[in-house]
């Protein structure tokens, strides 16, 4: 479905995403996980060319065998919201505060199909919302985004993303702004969408709980490139990369144990050195890690690690 090959994205001269390769198959949820500032959002946004300041300096993004990087602006605009839908972290900020939610649903369809009728759109929206267990549709359609809670807006964003039956949904931290109960509900919805519409998803998050409970595959990102990629259970139960291990240890648990932080700070992008980006914080780093870029190791089928000592 989506095949990212050797993608590099730069802001001016700084390379933020470095030779990223990632595959999303049909009906599969892939999560990108990593610390703030590791380039995961930039990578996600570049799929739809949403960031004007970022430029793609290498590689290709194949969606249905078409290279998105070579499409014209018009063609990309046609993809947005119809074949590839996007869900943002703060959905209510991405909605027009002067228009009602009903209008939002109408507009989502109208952009791609000028002949769309408002009644039909709302009927379809209602149908989707009923399936997603959002009740009180009448009230929701007539209210403005700021009148609804954050969790509600996020669920509406998922419903709106489904309006044009997209093949792929991109979600940027869809649950990070929500509390636990709303988070669980959004996870349930995304799973429901995947199971019933066979939609693929690429989700960016820093929450390991979301990764564990939602995704089929997980990609751990560090310093702009992939550190580990594979089946979610494989990655969580048998992490191979030192960074993945540290990241899993840092997740707080309900048993009162103190989570362990990772010493040091994430790398800065301005000075691009050779070698493994994680080396300065890695407990098992040796001289070779600072010199050579880590090599690709295959742990098992579909479980890849970029580390010299795995």
């Amino acid at each position: 479905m989506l095949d990212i090959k050797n993608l590099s994205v730069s802001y001016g001269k700084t390379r933020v995403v470095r030779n990223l390769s990632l595959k999303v198959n049909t009906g599969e949820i892939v999560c990108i996980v990593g610390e703030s500032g590791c380039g995961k959002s930039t990578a996600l946004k570049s799929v739809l060319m949403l960031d004007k300041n970022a430029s793609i300096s290498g590689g290709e993004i194949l969606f249905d065998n078409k290279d998105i990087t070579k499409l014209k602006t018009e063609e990309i605009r046609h993809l947005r919201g119809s074949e590839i839908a996007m869900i943002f972290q703060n959905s209510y900020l991405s909605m027009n505060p002067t228009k009602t939610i009903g209008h939002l649903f109408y507009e989502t369809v109208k952009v791609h199909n000028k002949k769309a009728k408002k009644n039909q759109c709302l009927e379809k929206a209602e149908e989707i919302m009923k399936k997603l267990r959002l009740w009180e549709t009448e009230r929701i359609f007539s209210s403005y985004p700021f009148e609804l809670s954050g969790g509600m807006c996020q669920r509406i964003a998922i419903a709106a993303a489904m309006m044009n039956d997209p093949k792929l949904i991109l979600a940027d931290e869809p649950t990070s702004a929500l509390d636990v109960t709303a988070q669980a509900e959004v996870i349930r919805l995304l799973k429901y969408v995947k199971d019933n519409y066979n939609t693929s998803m690429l989700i960016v998050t820093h929450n390991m709980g979301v990764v564990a409970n939602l995704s089929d595959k997980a990609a751990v990102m560090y310093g702009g490139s992939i550190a580990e990629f594979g089946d979610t259970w494989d990655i969580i139960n048998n992490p191979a990369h030192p960074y993945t291990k540290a990241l899993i240890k840092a997740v707080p648990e309900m048993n009162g144990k103190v989570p362990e932080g990772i010493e040091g700070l994430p790398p800065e992008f301005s000075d691009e050195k050779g070698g493994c980006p994680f080396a300065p914080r890695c407990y098992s780093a040796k001289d070779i890690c600072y010199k050579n870029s880590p090599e690709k190791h295959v742990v098992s089928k579909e479980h890849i690690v970029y580390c010299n000592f795995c």
Partner: protein
Amino acid sequence: MCLLKVTGLTKTYKNKKTNIRAVKGIDLSINEGECLGLVGESGCGKSTTAEIIARLIKEDSGTIVFNGTEITDDKRLKCVGKDLQMVFQNPKDSFDPKYSLLESVMMGACSYNIYSKSQLRQKALELIRYVGLKESYSNRNIYNLSGGECQKASIARALICSPKLIIFDEATSALDVSVQAQIIELMLRLKKENKMSFLFITHDLALASSVCDNIAVMYSGRIVEYGPCRDVLSLPKHPYTKQLILSVLPVKTQGEFKTPEFKAVRKEKGGGCDYFPFCPKADDKCAALMPEFVKHNKTKVLCWLNENNEV
């Protein structure tokens, strides 16, 4: 020794059309060197409670005794400021963007006259190191720091006048796990070395379990369960606490994960328990009468169903 004691706190936000009862009567206490976690969903009144205790907004009724003095009068700010500090959710918004890191940290003590100028500067540098920031950052603008670094800076600012109690209002919610863990480590160190007390507001139960001694679960402006952290989280008594614990996404489980199911019961609201419309076990009594606290060992629970140890 009891450091903070809050009794019968209420607050209503008045609007032209509606009155929102954000806090409907809260009792809590924090001893010296203790950390109390206040957990609950968004909109349950956690932050309002914190802001009242920090004297940022005024309560409608109730008393707050902090460090032996009642601080509910109008003259309160002076006695609070030095000993009670607050760390906010979005650290960048709580700093003046014009100043450097060092100046910002120093500013925490500027209105109390505790240090001389050189002392203040030295203390600030010391704290910047203590919270885990590089000293070379001290002349950087706050704007150029990352979210986690900024949060550490705001802890340094809170520490500069050596307070007795720090309120963390969702201070870790915007940070990613590894930075979160660093902040937790810092809090535990402060608790151990300086006997500092914390009011830790969060919606992350797992995080609360790693740092809090006691925990108070809030729902719709009331505390529904209050007791030692371990007891509350391992043996929750209130149906809401159970639901809340169920919705934490586990990371390390074997096999298929079951997404928590929410039974959308939604009965008509009666005059009784706030949680009644969503409670799977509610009966007629819950609809009619407001429950009272029932004690179980060290935990107290606001629920009728617990009267005979039914739950």
